[in-house]
């Protein structure tokens, strides 16, 4: 038999050949159905014990077991959380840091200030709807705003790679200036470092900000109570998907722009309308809405129940997510907030958000429940129930 013949034979039927080969020795097979032990209650009881054991394991003090930093440590999910708690919080521990809110609340005499910082490493630097510059300004403004503060002053630190075009830097800085002016904040201090070619990726920016907390709202995810309503201020996931598509690696096109925007006015409108009834606000950046809801569930020891059909997602985002196998609830936004409010104020809160152009798509997506504590549950569009957990890795790295 020639080489060619062998090929032809296996070409024709390599799948069938497998069946022939593997099903050669058929055995006597019991076609009957064994009596199954009482599957119901005993089974549920054992499963329940395992679930409790897992919850205990999850509450254990986080440890970083890896020897080296991996990309997962920067992804915003469980690995990031372990890194923050086991390395940073452990070393810096103090009552102001401990709540791990978007901004720390510090007092100076009678004045309460919100203080925050954030670094930006988005790739590509320019994407539909914005660039790393307005992202860096809006992101820090938003961290201040959701802490109940009026953003006031920002710092800007630049790490630039040797060979980075000055023209690009000018574009970035111009959009930072425009974003700051639009939000009524000033960039009052800064820093510049240049590193050798190959030691950074063009341009990284760090911004820090302070804002004045007016009113006596005591916001924090730990204050969420069973019964509270969960509200999002608009369609989710646009920023993350836009940046992902802008990289051009996926050969996907969609008519999408980043949702990057300063939310301080939107937040102000909400606080003016229903301030005392707002328990917590977060802006949904890396890790998306899902990550925030997990923070609520863990910090307050409650369950959060979300109705999948109520979550606003643009069809373009949903389509891209379906293709990529990503859940839009995990995709970053840069101009969306999640608010936890007293159920009695839910309608007024949604109305207040909708009164602002950035909140036109605001809607209630779920509620806080007592049981099971620490878990976020999703009532799926299909009618089933599942968990929404923290992500382990990031399907979309370097989104902000």
């Amino acid at each position, binding site marked *: 038999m020639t080489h060619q013949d062998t090929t032809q034979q296996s070409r024709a039927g390599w*799948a069938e050949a497998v069946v022939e080969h593997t099903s050669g020795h058929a055995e006597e097979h019991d076609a009957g159905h064994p009596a199954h032990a009482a599957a119901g209650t005993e089974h549920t009881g054992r499963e329940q014990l395992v679930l409790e054991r897992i919850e205990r394991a999850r509450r254990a003090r986080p440890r970083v077991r890896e020897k080296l930093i991996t990309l997962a440590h920067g992804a915003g999910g469980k690995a990031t959380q372990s890194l923050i708690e086991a390395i940073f919080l452990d070393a810096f521990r103090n009552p102001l840091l401990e709540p791990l809110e978007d901004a720390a609340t510090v007092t100076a005499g009678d004045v309460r200030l919100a203080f925050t910082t954030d670094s930006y490493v988005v790739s590509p630097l320019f994407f539909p709807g914005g660039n790393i510059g307005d992202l860096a300004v809006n992101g820090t403004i938003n961290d201040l705003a959701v802490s109940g503060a009026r953003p006031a002053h920002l710092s800007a630190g630049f790490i630039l790679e040797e060979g980075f075009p000055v023209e690009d830097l000018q574009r970035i800085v111009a959009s930072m200036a425009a974003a700051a002016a639009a939000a009524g904040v000033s960039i009052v201090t800064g820093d510049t470092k240049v590193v050798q070619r190959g030691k950074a990726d063009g341009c990284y920016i760090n911004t820090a900000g302070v804002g004045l907390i007016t009113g006596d709202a005591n916001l924090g995810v730990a204050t969420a109570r069973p019964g509270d309503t969960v509200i999002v201020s608009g369609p989710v996931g646009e920023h993350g998907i836009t940046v992902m598509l802008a990289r051009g690696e996926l050969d996907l096109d969609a008519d999408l722009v980043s949702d990057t925007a300063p939310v301080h006015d939107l937040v102000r409108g909400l606080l003016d309308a229903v301030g005392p009834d707002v328990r917590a606000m977060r802006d949904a950046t890396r890790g998306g809405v899902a990550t925030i809801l997990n923070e609520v569930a863990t910090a307050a020891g409650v369950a959060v129940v979300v109705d999948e059909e109520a979550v606003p997602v643009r069809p373009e985002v949903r389509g891209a997510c379906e293709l990529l196998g990503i859940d839009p609830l995990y995709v970053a936004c840069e101009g969306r907030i999640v608010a936890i409010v007293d159920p009695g104020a839910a309608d007024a809160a949604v109305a207040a958000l909708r009164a602002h152009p950035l909140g036109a798509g605001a809607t209630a997506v779920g509620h806080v429940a007592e049981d099971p504590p620490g878990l976020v*549950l999703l009532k799926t569009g299909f009618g089933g129930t599942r968990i929404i957990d923290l992500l382990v890795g990031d399907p979309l790295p370097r989104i902000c």
Partner: protein
Amino acid sequence: MRFVDEYRDAEKARALAAKIAALCEPGRHYKFMEVCGGHTHTIYKHGLEDYLPESVSLVHGPGCPVCVIPMGRVDDAIALAEQPDVIMTSFGDMMRVPGGRGSFFDSSAAGTDIRMVYSPLDALKVARQNPDKHVIFMAIGMETTAPSTAMTVLRAAAEGIENFSIFCNHVMIVPAIKAILDSPDLRLDGFIGPGHVSTVIGCRPYEFIASEYGKPIVTAGFEPLDILQSVYMLLQQLAEGRCEVENQYSRVVPWQGNTVALRAVGEVMELRPFFEWRGLGFISHSALQVRERYAAFDAERRFAIPGVRVADPKACQCGEVLKGVLKPWECKVFGTACTPEMPIGTCMVSSEGACAAYYNFGRFSRQRVREVTIEASRA
């Protein structure tokens, strides 16, 4: 969204669930295995078990290609990545799979160049862009992805690209189903057949399951209604005393398979005499290797592969989970020593792995939660 929402319609699901419940004989328990990891993912992601009566249980099968890669093959791949001037490329699913010496992520953190790609053609693109490096594609997957790997090798050959090869780990589902049918540990009433695999091989290769083993099998699509309908079709066969291969996924799966794809695979690859499956051990003629004719594109021929066998960690029960003998939560280390962030076994890594699906989506008491969600729909 068209072509998605119609397969996730809650009203249709309720109607189907009622028909399923009506078909179940009182006092009888039904155990069906969904062979494919994609089905496992769908079942948990959409909370499909909420629609099934307690007497119907779904058992998760071996059809997650990441889960069945033995630790030794991961070590071999990392050894390849450690060769000078090599860029290793892989699907994202592989990145966190632990070998005996850590995962791709760990290796990458230690200095190797391992990149995530979405298709083997992307790996070929990396090879074109880096002519001074050798680019290896970690080819994994069942019959579903083998054709795209084969087409990529054909493309590389046609373009005369010399700095590209594949580390072939393609496995085949039929021998694995056979191994499960021969295993004395498990009694099944039928199979939900793999959908994606069947788009390539068709439904004929499953005929022995019905004819020789007397088990019905229904090839199913990946939307939740597809799976619910397949359960219904299996119950219908049992109720009517039939035992056949049926195709629920006929909108995509041709009975004869995809001959063009099969031809491409047959051109580039041939059966391996045997291949080790994680947890299932060596199964003869269950995997593919590159043919001699395309040796230039075979990383196993171009490089010295250590080929070390690494025994699974003692605590790991992935094998029992892959065979459907254990439910994920019945594994000794599930959720405590083995979690998605610190996996011991592969089933906890891949999004199609039964343990990961249960941990990420199904880790709650359905009974307790039913009350919570009923309360939600009232609110």
